[in-house]
């Protein structure tokens, strides 16, 4: 179970580092809020899509995440995913979307 939470967290961290060049030290700081990472509203929904696409659910109110720290975000997303999957946080999943030909 713990491993699946770590997978969810690294999915988000990898996206922030690779697609938005967020510094690793910023991510390691437990006080950093999502809004401090330099993500605009488009960047935020792009990040959420990475998670939505893998776990097959749709976040209705993405705005609320900008006030959260990364820890809070992972906890919140995990409970949202569990609610959509009968209480389970799935492990290895393939993304549904092919971004490149």
């Amino acid at each position, binding site marked *: 179970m713990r491993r699946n939470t770590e997978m969810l967290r690294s999915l988000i961290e990898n996206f922030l580092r690779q697609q938005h060049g967020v510094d690793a030290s910023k991510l390691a700081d437990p006080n950093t809020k999502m809004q401090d990472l330099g993500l605009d509203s*488009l960047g935020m929904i*792009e990040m959420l899509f990475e998670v939505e696409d893998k776990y097959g659910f749709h976040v209705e109110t993405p705005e609320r995440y900008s006030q959260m720290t990364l820890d809070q975000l992972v906890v919140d997303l995990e409970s949202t995913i569990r609610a959509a999957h009968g209480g389970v946080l799935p492990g290895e999943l393939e993304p549904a*979307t092919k971004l490149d030909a």
Partner: protein
Amino acid sequence: MGAFFRASSSRPPSSMPEVRVTGLGLLTPSGLNVAESCAAWLRGESAIGPAPEAIRELLPQALAATVPDGWQQKLQRAVQGTDRSVQLAAVAAAEALQDAELDLPGETDPERIGIYVGIGLAGANTLDNLYATFYERLYRPDAAGHRNPAMVHPLSVPRLMSNATAAMLSILYGVRGPTHTYSVACASSALALGEAYRAIRSGWIDRALVVGCEAMITAGAFLAWNALRVLAQPDPEDPASSCKPFDARRSGFVLGEGAAAVLLENAESAQRRGKDGHAVLIGYGSSSDAQHLTAPSVDGQARAMRAALRDAGVAPKDVGYINAHGTATAGGDIAESDSIVNVFGEHASRVPISATKSMHGHLIGAAGAVEFAGTVWSVAHGEIPPTAHWRTRDPKCALDYVAEGARRLPDLRVAITNSFAFGGTNVCLVVRKN
């Protein structure tokens, strides 16, 4: 009224600035930059081959001209998630600005520079992937990996919008002037060049970054083009020679992808930076056939060429080279040969004509700018590429198509390049040596 119209269609007053070509960039199936691409064309070397496997599963005979790998690592971070057409454009644009030694933003008034983009089917890869994901995995409840069908990528719209390339380039380079996108099928980027030239001539802007780009080597696009019966049959001996413009054995074109970028500058602004540029863009003409969605018109093509020559103030006999539209379709090549005879009269048989689509394929929206860049290169270097694979004379195409290989033309002063689009829009651009 009549006098006004006559005056406006005659040669513009000499107070209008000259428009110099000070930067070129190419990312084509033939090469990753201008030097590689132009060298391959002079050698008569074709970049045409079998289409990617996903397309050949549906169309086993399909041919394509794809851009070779080796450019992706040049992409700026902001461009990495964009449609392939935007990515190809960004690489070509960077080369053109480097060639022009123009640092953007910063070195120039950002409101006096414009971005003019020509593209046929913007966002083709994004759209194909979107529909593939939707129909293969999201929509069908029994599909492997079936998900909520409403969940498509949130950046789908900004990735596939027609002005995605122009928008990205304006952001990358801080360009705040006109940011226009022209989608006029196979004449898109030739028209973009012409309209940018006019904006500089009339004093609206000093510089324009003009880009043609196209990336629709996708299953959906191939099925559509194939159904239209305009694609070349593979040559049984040498698939690379399948596109044979003006040859009696021609059977159509090969779909290609790529990008070209051209920096046009008001001559005075260029000279202030110590730049003479590669050549001068001296004339632009466009016309509409008002006749048929796909069939070419000799009258429409001839009117575009005449308008361009009149705009340039040059006579047909002054033209020393024609870079043809030359798609290798049965009717298209006859119409173009006829329209050249119509405009050039006796001189038609003396002007060398080459169709480089025989080597780089048909780049649709990018074709006009790619072939313009090739024409500028030829005028600047005094050497023209051949029409590759020409062997068999068609009595209906009886002109000089430079079949023997590249030709040295040290006295070449003026050249034209033709771009004729589905929908009936024709564009001709006139280039003069510096």
